[in-house]
């Protein structure tokens, strides 16, 4: 059966009431009801670096993505969260043009330059490759550019090491340096913290945050865990085949669908890692003063 013949493809959904705040939706499963659209399915935002409208994707007879809409603009960090198998990586592959969607479209203005950091970059030890030669591979980068990019991502000492011998955190920093050498205005990072330990994870997100501010980048992050990530995101899109809910991190974390996917303790975990926050939400979603939140957030 061709995926295009498959029945039940929902039409783009006009529900646009929920692009800033999450609205309760009863979706713990991903079929049999009209999915909740993360963004209004209108024309792509002209300011967006990348937009998706009505993306759907089938693998065999299984629909892995249904009617996905999203926009990423300059200067904002948008995080895709969702459980394993929710279709996050497939969505990224569609956005990057590695695969073509069965329905819907990806819109990128000609000015958009993407820096991509793939998930699980494990270099086969059969391939000899120093960090320095990896960074010049296919790039017109001088040694000075390479040094500067590695310096910026905190991986300067790896320049002559073998790529296959780097730690998880070093690999991610080298990949981000490669992405920066392409002078991007949009960074797409798929699970950047996989293979990185807990403190390394916080440092990595600090780095991404700094790069965003310094270069005025749009950032699209993929994560299956939430804590450190959500605290730094401007917008969170919770994906489980379709967009379950989206909005500001604190709104999404109070959302019923989110709690169903990640468990009730996930909502409270967010408060611990959020620093620049003048209030928090109780379980009913009401704003509360910050006083009873532990003062020291990350690390110990």
């Amino acid at each position, binding site marked *: 059966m061709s995926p295009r013949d498959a029945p039940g493809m929902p039409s783009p959904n006009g529900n646009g009431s929920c692009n800033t705040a999450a609205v309760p939706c009863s979706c713990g499963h991903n079929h049999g009801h009209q999915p909740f659209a993360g963004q209004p399915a209108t024309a792509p935002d002209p300011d967006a670096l990348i937009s998706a409208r009505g993306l759907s994707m089938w693998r065999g007879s299984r629909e892995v993505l249904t009617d996905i809409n999203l926009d990423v603009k300059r200067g904002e960090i948008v995080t895709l969260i969702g459980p394993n198998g929710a279709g996050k990586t497939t969505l990224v592959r569609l956005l990057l043009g590695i695969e073509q969607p069965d329905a819907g479209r990806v819109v990128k203005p000609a000015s958009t330059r993407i820096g991509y950091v793939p998930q699980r970059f494990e270099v086969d030890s059969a391939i000899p*490759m120093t960090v320095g*030669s990896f960074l010049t591979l296919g790039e017109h980068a001088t040694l000075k550019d390479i040094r500067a990019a590695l310096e910026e991502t905190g991986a300067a000492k790896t320049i002559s090491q073998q790529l296959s011998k780097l730690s998880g955190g070093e690999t991610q920093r080298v990949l981000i340096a490669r992405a920066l050498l*392409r002078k991007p205005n949009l960074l797409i990072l798929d699970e950047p913290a996989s293979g990185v330990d807990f403190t390394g994870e916080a440092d990595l997100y600090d780095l991404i945050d700094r790069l965003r501010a310094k270069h005025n980048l749009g950032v699209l992050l993929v994560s299956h865990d939430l804590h450190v990530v959500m605290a730094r995101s401007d917008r969170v899109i919770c994906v489980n085949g379709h967009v379950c809910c989206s909005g500001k991190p604190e709104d999404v974390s109070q959302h019923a669908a989110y709690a169903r996917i990640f468990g009730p303790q996930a909502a409270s975990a967010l408060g611990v890692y959020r620093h620049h926050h003048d209030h928090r939400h109780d379980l009913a979603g009401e704003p509360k003063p910050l006083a009873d939140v532990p003062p020291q957030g990350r690390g110990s």
Partner: protein
Amino acid sequence: MLEWPEPFVWRALFAALGLAIIAAPLGCIVVWRRMSYVGETLSQAGLLGVALGLAANVDLTLAVILAAIAAAGVLTLLSRQQMVPLDSALGLMHHATLALGIAAIALVKGPAIDLMSYLFGDVFAVTQNDLYWIYGGGAVVVAITLYLWQPLVRLSLHEDLATAEGINPRLPRAAFDLLLAVVIAVAMKIVGILLVMAFLVVPAVAARPLSDTPERMAALAAVLAILGVILGLWLSLWSDAPGGPSIVIALCTIASISLLAGSRIRR
């Protein structure tokens, strides 16, 4: 004992040296992409090409190239199915092509054909015409390899990253299969169908522990292959062992020494 100035010795030497240089960079990519079993299957499909070429009375080099390309096409289709792992599919095709090839050669011309010379090659029977194939075809292969080198390395390293950065994976991959088919056809005369992949894979394996970038590995693989050819031909003339296997023995010895040395250095 040593009949060094004999023309057939010079032809053998030039043929094997040409092949060593052509095969080295491609062999590295075979190793990086973990394709040695794929290459093995393509080269054995070449035997079927020999049979069909004899039956249709066309140039055997061309017939082998076409058979290897056809096998590469079948493998591409096989890699898309989900029923059995590619390794199992290769195990099936690998033996099917060899058995079909041997049976077909026997049926086409009867036992008068020297099957051994196709299976193990005969480097000392290389003709002037073969040398034209090796150096003419080889120049084209080297030119295309150089042109596609960077995309091939990037695809070997991480296909998604390369594709996201704007490389269309189809063209380099198809071109690579074509180059592999040409090298197999050319190498068949020298080392034979059963040992063709040794010429590609073993120098790359030998070069790996002593290299820190892809380009150095390819260059070093060529140098070590040249060394192996000279040592192997000398071994063959000295001991009267067949030429192709002697070269492969020399290459494997060099690779073993390199791996041992590499493990010492790393420790």
